[in-house]
């Protein structure tokens, strides 16, 4: 019910919103929760397991019950706390976890069946037969849970940024604002964040006054000062959700964009110092049926009144174990709510508190124990107290409870800071910090307003000192005390909270009705009985209790329940709370949307896309692209009416019978110059590179320190002290780092300069029997040079076309097994050269070919791809390159190859495979076994590492790594690929890797 005046809402404007389809109205300044309360809505959801009716319980981030689906049906965000959602025009909210409706939820049958659903029930009850678990799981997930994930991508926009500051103040309540005000006068860069829509924290929710003005006006004044200060940044609706290494704090900022949706921004703030002014959260009390709608935290009841001018009920009872709830009695009674009684668990509340009640004629019951009654809503409480033997019944629609205050330790604890138990407050407070942080205000267990303001100032001075600022220093590097005097108006008195849990047996004896459930954790439906049962079953560690009962494991991470659970466990163990310990706090403080963590790195922007300089040419030629690492490369070039299969076949034939050309610009390319190049390459590659003469190329294999193949590629000696080396596409970055490490760190004495030129040089391979004839057309005056280049030779030539000359590096190397040339040109002339070659093509039926054709061509030849046919467990001997190992020099990985295990039997060796039945397909990733059959065929003895269909051989060709494969040449084994193309095993014969032109005659023509 809305009050006619008061509160921080703009009554001049109306915001329309809906809840479960019902049209409602609120005002700017409302949260969704306050607007629902103002509209008299009490039932907002059904509980996790028992489907019990639940209402709004709190006014902040600790809310366990009021989790709604917000937004249009298809993209609604589930599990959104109504208490933290500012109201906006057109907001659509829906309750969750019920069937068929919120009011009539048939699944609440679970509540009656609760003896079956005790702690760990699904681990015990649904354990056999094991096969049926997927069925059980589906069923259980239907009946227990929270909201559903949206079916479609929402309209939200997410972005991410890095920020840096000297001081990050988390929380803009009294302590945070006091600290910020002091630091604003220095030249330190200060960022203040608060999860609410406006700063003030509890000052907005309490009826207080500072310096003669009320708390809200004071907040506004300080905020204006801070906004005016150039060195201060204020962020609202921003939750500091995680504290990470080296003072990195993650902030989720919700930005109003338009009216209908919020976009979010993730800040990663590296702060030199952090102030935790995170406040505290009120604890509930545990008694029978303490989860009925109408029961809420006492602080929340007055927060809705003071900040939102919304009355939570007509007739209320207050149940407390400390003085803070007396403020709720006073505020609500003054606002015209019929406060029937205050029931205090303690025998002797403060005299001043008692006086404030009697002024208003509110009854006080000391030593009180209560139980709540009602079906879908609180109807009454039954109460017994030390003044009478007789239990009495009080009709009411609202019960405000307070079990004391728990400091919001989350971020302090995440930062590695120690926690200390404060017996006076019966809770943990921050201990010695681990990183550069200070805690200030209520998080330190302080609850007086003056104390909190003073503590904020103290924190500011501590921080200032850490930056070397002193009071009264000149030139603005000073921090001076504010002159403002603060009236000592208490937020509330604190007292040692006594019992928080009503004893079940005693309650029954006293006749207040104890048959209901005593909830410890509302969000996950964990009751006292569950905790007791866990204890009986030996889950006596606090971490075990959490996992077994799920206490504190909901999206609220037990903000209201952890300490009560802990108290209960300590009682069962008959040990003090600090001995029992506390569960670990982990990020995030409140749930974070996955989209926010992904930011802009979604879809095509998940990773960068690399395109070669010839990309446009490939597009023109009808290329079908695919990713090769980050590179986008043509798989094949489609002609009109062709399928990919026929295109690939055509391209392969062109290379084998005529001539083809392909873009090899993605290969890693390096230039090496200096007097010690030969020595350097000798150390890096397994073969002898010092014998390589100018004008010749050599295939090289490099190993890691452990003797395994790291990469392969070619080395070309351009000149006496000038080399050009290529690496495989996928390993270019890794090889660069490897070589840089060797040159910069290990062998700085070598006179070698290394430059990566992958992007600077483009490469085109021209392959096929007619390749030389084609290039002759382009070589112009260098025709003779071209003719004289031998297999594995190099020459610098000039390509000529209508008077234009392009200097190119011509390497006669082949990855296809045909006579072939790789032509490297500076990247800016690449398209011109591509066109030049293409223009001379028609006479030779030249065809561009893509990755797929290239793959089949090299598989036919038994040429490997490092990463597929050699993985991190493969030695040169395993791939049949043992003969390349130099016996006359040392190289990286040589010692590791001398280990006996590298030469023993049982190693996976590279072989070729040929299907026994020619029609059978062979596919990459298939496992190989000795026996056929769909069961009991034994362990895998290897896998197919590369495969493709060879149109010339009219069968699939494959390379495989097979255990002792070379020893078993000619034998038949089986390819098992049940998950993909071949449901039945395929018999394959182990053959030599090279299936085409094994003598290599075609290469050398």
């Amino acid at each position: 019910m809305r009050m006619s005046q008061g509160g921080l809402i703009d009554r001049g404007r109306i915001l329309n919103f809906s809840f479960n389809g019902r049209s409602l109205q609120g005002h700017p300044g409302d949260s969704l929760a306050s607007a629902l309360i103002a509209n008299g809505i009490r039932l907002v959801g059904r509980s996790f397991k028992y489907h019990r009716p639940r209402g709004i319980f709190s006014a902040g981030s600790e809310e366990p019950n009021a989790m709604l689906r917000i937004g249009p049906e298809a993209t609604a965000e589930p599990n959104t706390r109504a208490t933290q959602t500012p109201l906006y025009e057109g907001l659509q909210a829906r309750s969750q976890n019920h069937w068929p409706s919120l009011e009539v939820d048939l699944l609440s049958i679970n509540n009656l069946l609760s003896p079956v659903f005790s702690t760990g029930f699904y681990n015990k009850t649904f354990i056999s037969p094991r096969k049926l678990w997927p069925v059980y799981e589906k069923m259980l997930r239907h009946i227990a849970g929270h909201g559903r994930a949206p079916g479609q991508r929402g309209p939200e926009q997410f972005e991410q940024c890095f920020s840096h500051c000297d001081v990050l103040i988390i929380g803009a309540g009294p302590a945070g604002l006091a600290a910020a005000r002091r630091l604003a006068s220095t030249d330190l860069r200060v960022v203040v964040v608060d999860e609410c829509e406006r700063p003030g924290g509890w000052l907005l929710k309490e009826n207080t006054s500072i310096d003669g003005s009320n708390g809200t006006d004071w907040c506004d004044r300080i905020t204006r000062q801070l906004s005016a200060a150039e060195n201060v940044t204020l962020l609202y609706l921003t939750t500091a959700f995680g504290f990470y290494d080296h003072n990195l704090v993650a902030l989720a900022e919700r930005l109003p964009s338009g009216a209908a949706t919020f976009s979010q921004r993730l800040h990663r703030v590296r702060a030199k110092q952090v102030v935790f002014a995170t406040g505290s959260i009120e604890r509930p009390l545990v008694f029978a049926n303490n989860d009925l709608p109408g029961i809420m935290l006492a602080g929340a009841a007055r927060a809705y009144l003071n900040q939102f001018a919304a009355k939570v009920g007509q007739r209320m009872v207050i149940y407390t174990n400390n003085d803070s709830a007396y403020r709720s009695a006073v505020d609500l009674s003054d606002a015209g709510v019929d406060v029937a009684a205050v029931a205090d668990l303690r025998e002797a509340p403060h005299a001043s508190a008692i006086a404030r009640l009697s002024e208003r004629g509110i009854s006080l019951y000391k030593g009180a124990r209560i139980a709540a009654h009602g079906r879908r809503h609180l109807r009454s409480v039954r109460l017994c107290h030390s003044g009478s033997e007789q239990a009495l019944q009080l009709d009411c629609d609202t019960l405000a409870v307070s079990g004391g205050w728990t400091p919001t330790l989350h971020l302090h604890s995440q930062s590695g800071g120690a926690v200390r138990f404060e017996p006076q407050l019966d809770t943990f407070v921050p201990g010695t910090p681990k990183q550069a942080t200070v805690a200030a205000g209520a998080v330190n267990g302080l609850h007086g307003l003056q104390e909190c303001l003073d503590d904020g100032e103290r924190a500011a001075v501590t921080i200032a000192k850490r930056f070397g600022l002193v009071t009264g220093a000149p030139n603005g590097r000073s921090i001076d005390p504010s002159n403002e005097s603060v009236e000592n108006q208490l937020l509330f008195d604190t007292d040692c909270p006594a019992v928080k849990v009503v004893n079940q047996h005693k309650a029954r004896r006293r006749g207040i009705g104890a048959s209901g459930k005593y909830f410890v954790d509302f969000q996950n439906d964990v009751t006292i009985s569950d905790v007791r049962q866990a204890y009986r079953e030996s889950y006596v560690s606090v971490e075990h209790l959490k996992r077994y009962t799920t206490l504190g494991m909901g999206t609220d991470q037990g903000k209201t329940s952890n300490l009560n659970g802990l108290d209960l466990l300590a009682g069962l163990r008959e040990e003090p709370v600090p001995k029992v310990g506390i569960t670990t706090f982990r990020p995030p403080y409140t749930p974070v949307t996955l989209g926010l963590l992904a930011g802009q790195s979604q879809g095509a922007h998940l990773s960068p896309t690399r395109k070669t300089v010839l990309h446009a040419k490939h597009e023109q030629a009808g290329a079908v692209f695919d990713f090769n690492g980050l590179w986008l490369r043509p798989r094949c070039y489609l002609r009109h009416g062709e399928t990919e299969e026929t295109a690939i076949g055509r391209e392969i034939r062109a290379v084998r019978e005529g001539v083809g050309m392909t873009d090899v610009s993605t290969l890693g390319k390096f230039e090496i110059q200096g007097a010690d190049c030969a020595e350097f390459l000798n150390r890096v590659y397994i073969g002898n590179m010092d014998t390589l003469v100018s004008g010749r190329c050599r295939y090289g294999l490099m190993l890691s320190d452990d003797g395994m193949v790291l990469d392969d590629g070619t080395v070309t000696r351009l000149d006496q002290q000038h080399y050009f080396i290529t690496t495989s596409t996928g390993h270019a970055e890794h090889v660069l780092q490897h070589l840089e490490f060797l040159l910069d760190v290990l062998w700085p004495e070598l006179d070698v300069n290394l430059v990566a030129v992958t992007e600077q040089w483009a490469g085109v391979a021209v392959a096929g029997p007619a390749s030389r004839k084609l290039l002759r057309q382009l070589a112009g005056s260098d025709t003779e040079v071209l003719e004289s280049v031998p297999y594995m030779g190099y020459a610098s030539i000039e390509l000529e076309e209508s008077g234009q000359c392009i200097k190119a590096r011509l390497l006669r190397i082949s990855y296809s097994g045909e006579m072939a040339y790789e032509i490297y040109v500076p990247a800016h002339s690449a398209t011109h050269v591509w066109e030049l070659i293409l223009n001379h093509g028609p006479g030779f039926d030249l065809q561009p070919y893509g990755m797929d054709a290239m793959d089949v061509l090299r598989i036919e030849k038994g040429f490997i791809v490092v990463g597929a046919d050699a993985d991190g467990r493969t030695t040169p001997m395993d791939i049949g390159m043992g003969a390349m190992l130099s016996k006359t020099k040392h190289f990286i990985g040589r010692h590791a190859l001398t280990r006996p295990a590298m030469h023993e039997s049982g190693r996976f060796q590279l072989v070729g495979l040929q299907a026994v039945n020619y029609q059978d397909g062979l596919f990459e990733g298939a496992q190989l076994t000795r026996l056929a059959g769909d069961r009991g065929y034994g362990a895998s003895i290897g896998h197919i590492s590369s495969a493709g269909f060879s149109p010339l051989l009219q069968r699939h060709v494959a390379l495989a790594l097979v255990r002792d494969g070379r020893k078993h040449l000619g034998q038949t084994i089986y390819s098992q690929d049940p998950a993909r193309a071949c449901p039945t095993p395929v018999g394959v014969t182990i053959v030599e890797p090279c299936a085409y032109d094994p003598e290599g005659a075609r290469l050398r023509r």
Partner: protein
Amino acid sequence: MQEIRCPWCGPRVQTEFEYYCDDSLLTEVWGSEAVQQNLDRVFLRSNHLGYHQEIWQHTHGCRGWLRVLRHNLTHEIKESQPLGSNPVVDKDGRMQS
């Protein structure tokens, strides 16, 4: 995400760097026939709780190398020292002359 001080560029976020190897890998006796010693260096490194000498590269920065003394439990970085020759580019990405 840790903060690492690059000896050439100043404090930078961890994602700009790549861990490369343990400091002990720098001690290879090159070309020697001290096979066992070199194999132990590769395969038998200490994985103790406490400070480790680590080799990092400022990969997405100046590409310089650094030796970082880091605690593997607390992630405290005690020091970061330049390693090897100067990086080829400065902090603004310009080539060093």
